[in-house]
């Protein structure tokens, strides 16, 4: 799916198909920035770093400071060399005898810089990867706790890109941007100190340069990021069009629509080109301009310094106070050296602006997911292995007995009762709305006795799947009660509740791995024999044995190497392997041919024997032998009864059955 351009968002209310001119856009973006509360997501990222790598991070900070300060001192080394050794020697006032000792001292200092540089780089690699790993794991854990409604709301591509694009932006931020920013800031600070030490006159010239650099960086950097937004929008449109065309490529060919497609594409492609040219022009000229302002500053310093020397003016700086012998020429040379690294540090910071923006929006999306309210689970009734005592009472068992019970602790008197898991489900006057105010289920009441088969019939949107979603507590009900073996399901721990339900969903989802692993997904402790048993029950054994690798056949990308029918059989086998007392079958056979369907149905019939079953089917033939058939319409049960009763009633079911009424 076409993704929202990473990095910067357009202001609210701006139609991406009809962008206002740049000036207006700029104003709107400024306005938007002003109105949004200060974003804390980046500092939360740093909190991750801090709380997990306190010691390492302090070491890194210290090392960065050492490296930067020594790097700034390089010019002092040079200046001092000229003023303390070379000039006196040249002018016959001294000699180079002290030089080896001086250079040894400098060499030692440089070694410290190199060592601390190596230390912080290596540590930073560990810190950034470790932090990312922790963030990723946290994201996934949080995601597992999110309610199904979250997954309904988001497209899978959108969630995926949290783990790829957004985490990647964080990687860049933690491992490059943060150290670079610290390094550059310390460099700038140290350089200013050194410059003050050198000469107060010359620093005035530098001040002019700094102002110019910040003005330019603000102006061009701003224009660049605005055009960048426009470019990302154009890119999004081109990508969207490409995605759509590639998916519909066969349709395009069938309708000989190629020419039209090409010209539609050209239009968007040229728009992207124009936006990209502008955005890249600004991005490309930022560095040469910054670099050349640095050059001009260098030249200006040389000129001003030379004129002052030529005019015989004397320098004024800390260095002269400390050592009156220091010559203006040596100061000038030192100044020229340091101003280069100074301007480089400033452009270093300006280069990171785009990365900061990227990381900010990335972290905002990541934390938005992590801050989503997780699904509540305050259930305390658990499903446990049980055994029946001779006196008929039920107690917990440590070994597998085939018998399960609900362990129900009563807070009031501190006792624990055990209820045998039977599969008795009741719904009383249940109302439900996915979106508050839009009730989709009204007043649903039903009883399912252990071993009964309950069917739901109705058009799309009538609420069949919703009822099933409520029983498995994918959503929580608004009003009314659902009881499972007499226990309110809100009191049952979700994991226990779902363990007791075997579900075959409308959409088949298999996982990468062997067929055996996929069937075992239903019961991780199942032996190979039990897996085969389940496959046989679902009529899947035969086709599995015909595959070259049998049960060890690898499934890739959701079982794309199998037919739809085969995938459905596997998903039924998976549920069979779970061996739960209650079964929920949601339209398991919608898109397969009649022959395969008959095969699937035979498998399902075997599976349903002796269990409480809820079944939804489009084809009435699948539900006819149910104990109760519920006909749903707009969230209400409008008819209920056995097939024969409903036919005799001559109502909606009868009309459906005779084809006088259509299901949508």
């Amino acid at each position, binding site marked *: 799916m076409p993704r929202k351009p990473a990095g910067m968002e357009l202001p609210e209310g701006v139609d991406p198909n009809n962008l206002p001119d740049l000036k207006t856009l700029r104003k709107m973006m400024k306005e938007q920035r002003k109105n949004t509360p200060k974003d804390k997501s980046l500092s939360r990222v740093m909190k991750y770093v801090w709380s997990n790598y306190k010691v390492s991070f302090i070491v890194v900070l210290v090392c960065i400071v050492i490296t930067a300060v020594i790097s700034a001192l*390089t010019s002092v*080394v*040079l200046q001092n060399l000229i003023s303390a050794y*070379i000039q006196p*020697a*040249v002018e016959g006032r001294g000699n180079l005898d002290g*030089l080896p000792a001086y250079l040894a001292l400098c*060499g030692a200092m*440089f070694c410290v*810089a*190199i*060592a601390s*540089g190596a230390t912080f*780089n*290596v540590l930073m*690699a*560990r810190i*950034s990867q470790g932090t990312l*790993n922790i963030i*990723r794991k946290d994201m996934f*854990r949080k995601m*597992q706790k999110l309610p199904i409604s979250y997954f309904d709301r988001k497209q899978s591509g959108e969630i995926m890109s949290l*783990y790829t694009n957004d985490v990647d932006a964080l990687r860049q931020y933690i491992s490059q941007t943060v150290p670079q920013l610290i390094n550059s800031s310390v460099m700038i600070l140290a350089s200013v100190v050194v410059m003050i030490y050198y000469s107060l006159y010359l620093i005035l010239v530098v001040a002019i340069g700094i102002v110019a650099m910040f003005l330019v960086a603000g102006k061009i950097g701003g224009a660049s990021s605005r055009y960048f937004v426009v470019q990302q929008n154009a890119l999004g449109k*081109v990508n969207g069009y490409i995605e759509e065309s*590639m*998916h519909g*490529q*066969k*349709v395009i*060919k*069938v*309708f000989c629509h190629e020419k039209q497609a090409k010209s539609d*594409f*050209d239009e968007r492609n*040229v728009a*992207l*080109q124009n936006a*990209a040219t502008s955005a*890249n*022009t600004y*991005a*490309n000229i930022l560095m040469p*301009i910054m670099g050349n302002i640095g050059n*001009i500053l260098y030249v200006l310093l040389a000129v001003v310094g*030379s004129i002052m020397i*030529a005019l015989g003016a004397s320098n004024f700086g800390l260095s002269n106070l400390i050592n009156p012998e220091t010559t203006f020429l040596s100061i000038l040379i030192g100044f*020229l050296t340091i101003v280069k690294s100074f301007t480089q540090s400033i452009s270093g910071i300006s280069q990171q602006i785009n990365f900061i923006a990227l990381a900010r929006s990335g972290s905002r999306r990541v934390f938005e997911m992590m801050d989503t309210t997780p699904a509540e689970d305050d259930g305390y009734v658990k499903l446990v292995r049980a055994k029946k005592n001779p006196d008929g009472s039920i107690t917990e068992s440590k070994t597998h007995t085939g018998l399960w019970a609900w362990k129900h602790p009563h807070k009031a008197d501190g006792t624990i009762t055990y209820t045998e898991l039977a599969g008795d489900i009741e719904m009383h006057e249940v109302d439900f709305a996915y979106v508050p105010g839009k009730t989709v289920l009204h007043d649903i009441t039903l009883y399912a006795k252990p071993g009964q088969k309950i069917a739901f019939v109705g058009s799309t949107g009538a609420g069949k799947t919703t009822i099933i979603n409520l029983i498995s507590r994918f959503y929580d009900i608004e009003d009314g009660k659902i009881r499972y073996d007499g226990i309110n399901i809100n009191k049952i721990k979700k*994991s226990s509740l*779902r363990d007791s339900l075997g*579900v075959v969903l409308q959409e088949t*989802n298999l996982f*990468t791995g062997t067929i055996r692993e996929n069937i075992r*997904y*239903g019961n*991780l402790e199942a032996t190979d024999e039990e897996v085969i048993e389940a496959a046989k029950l679902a009529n899947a054994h035969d086709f599995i044995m015909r595959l070259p690798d049998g049960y060890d056949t690898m499934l890739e990308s959701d079982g794309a190497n199998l037919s739809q029918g085969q995938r459905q059989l596997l998903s039924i086998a998976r549920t069979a392997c779970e061996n739960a007392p209650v079964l929920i079958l949601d339209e398991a056979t919608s898109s397969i041919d*009649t*022959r395969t369907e008959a095969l699937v149905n035979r498998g399902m019939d075997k599976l349903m024997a002796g269990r409480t079953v809820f079944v939804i089917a489009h084809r009435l*033939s699948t539900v006819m032998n149910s104990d109760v058939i519920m006909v749903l319409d707009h969230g209400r049960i409008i008819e209920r009864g056995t097939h024969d009763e409903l036919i005799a009633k001559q109502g909606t079911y009868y009309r459906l059955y005779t084809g006088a*009424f*259509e299901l949508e």
Partner: protein
Amino acid sequence: MLKTLAKSIREYKLQSILSPVFVAIEVFLEVMIPMICSDLINFLQGDLFGAHSFMLFGMPTGAFVANVGEGIGFVLAYSGILIAMAGLSLTFGILSGRACAKASAGFAKNLREDLFYKIQNFSFENIDTYLTSSLVTRLTTDVTNIQNAYMMLIRGAIRSPLMFVAALALAFTKSWFIALIYLGMAILLVALMAILPSRAMRIFRRVFKKYDKLNLRVQEDVRGARVVKAFVREDFETEKFDNAAEDIRKDFTKAETILAFTSPIVNIIMYGIIIMICAFASIMIVNTGSDFVGAVGSLQIGDLTALVQYAMMILMSMMMLIMTFVMITMSIESGNRIVQVLNTESTLTSPDGGLTEVASGDIEFENVSFSYAGDENKCALMDVNLKINAGETVGVLGATGSSKSTLVQLIPRLYDVTKGSVKVGGVDVRQYDLDALRGEVAMVLQKNVLFSGTIKENIRWGKPDATDEEIVEACRLAQADEFISSFPDGYDTYIEQGGTNVSGGQRQRLCIARALIANPKIIIFDDSTSAVDTKTDALIRKSMAESLPNATKIIIAQRTASVEEADKILILDNGKVVNVGTHAELMETSDIYREAYNIQNKKEDENA
């Protein structure tokens, strides 16, 4: 690969050449600035005899003053030259940035265009060989990678070596001895650095594969969220994810640790150079007449500043060069993927001067065999002989995988037969102009899609110049008019990408309307009404029979009810036509048909 990609530069050749030219000028000016500066400083310092000579580029001009105070004019002259040079360098920097942006954005545009056009000419067979998602990646991410690499190539890749050579050359004019030291250190740097990226790259490549695995874990977990929750496998999934994540962390840390040594290595070289210059330059400047200075020559203080600048330039350009190299290597994979598409020749082309008139809706299959792989031993269709007359309605039935879709796709020549011949209107389909043939053979594909746009726009795909009345008429035939009219925006309702805002049955009916509007001679429904209820299904067939009596209608279906009234029903099994006949005939002769019919009608019989 490069040759194929270079073809897409086209009208942006000039900009692509200008960009490096401007860069070269900028580099030249940039390296000259320290040179003039050193002249200036030497002038200020004066030589051993106290004379301050006015030199340019290290060459004496003959002018000199005995006292700096009198040389203010010369200082101003130096200033003028320096400021002019910095200004020019700025100008060329901006010019090259612009040229580079134009060239790379233009190149990317052409590349996308070439890819898109190429894919438009793909045959179905070509399309089948690529995953849709991989085509999308090639057109988007891969092109962007190449665009970035190209930008680096025409700017950075020129700038760094030029800067290196120029700075080194000028260092030579100052002192061959020190320049040699630079060269030696530069070689040492390359030697040390060359191992790092290549070793890191090897790990990175491995990591990218592991990334795919991590993404797969997330994708499966998200898509199967209901399954995971229904089976209470959250912890199981988390463990799988953790393993994948841990795997990435280990490898990534390894790779980044290797790369972490780049900056210390550069620092070693840089500080090494500084110490060496300080030592040697001091001796050479002070010039006590030692043998060493006699051998390597003397220096002035100003030369020292220039040499320090050149050392920085050389190091910086080396670093940039290595980075550029790494970035460009990383885009090679993208380049290969793009070229793979560009070099794919369509396996099916319209013949030159092909027939543009389709005489009638007669269809004939003569000994047709077809294999997707072109391999006669693995045929999806075998020895099919068929004759369908114009105006007939033909049903096609068979199990999943019996090649029903394959059979009908040969009629509009979506694929070419492997053996035999398919004739439409008495002429082999390969003799028709493709557009003309497909214009007369309307096909509703099994995996059909609507495009983002209004309903009207979508229906007009079948006939670009269709009037509103024609559109409504086609929708009426397809039993779509009723629900379209119930939408608040009616025919102007906007269909979202993939048609997600209409139901499955509605989508199918819109696709049918889109096919019918062209008033074609042959209409093919490939399981096009599976989500439509039986009653509507029957209505569609009825209205088609009434309003398109002369069109040949071919209907693939799962339900026997959909084909019962057809003039002919074909039963396919494993790529062979095993039975042909009417409903009544097939009830007698075909086991497959009878079985399907009985399963679908069994219960009704019991209750009748």
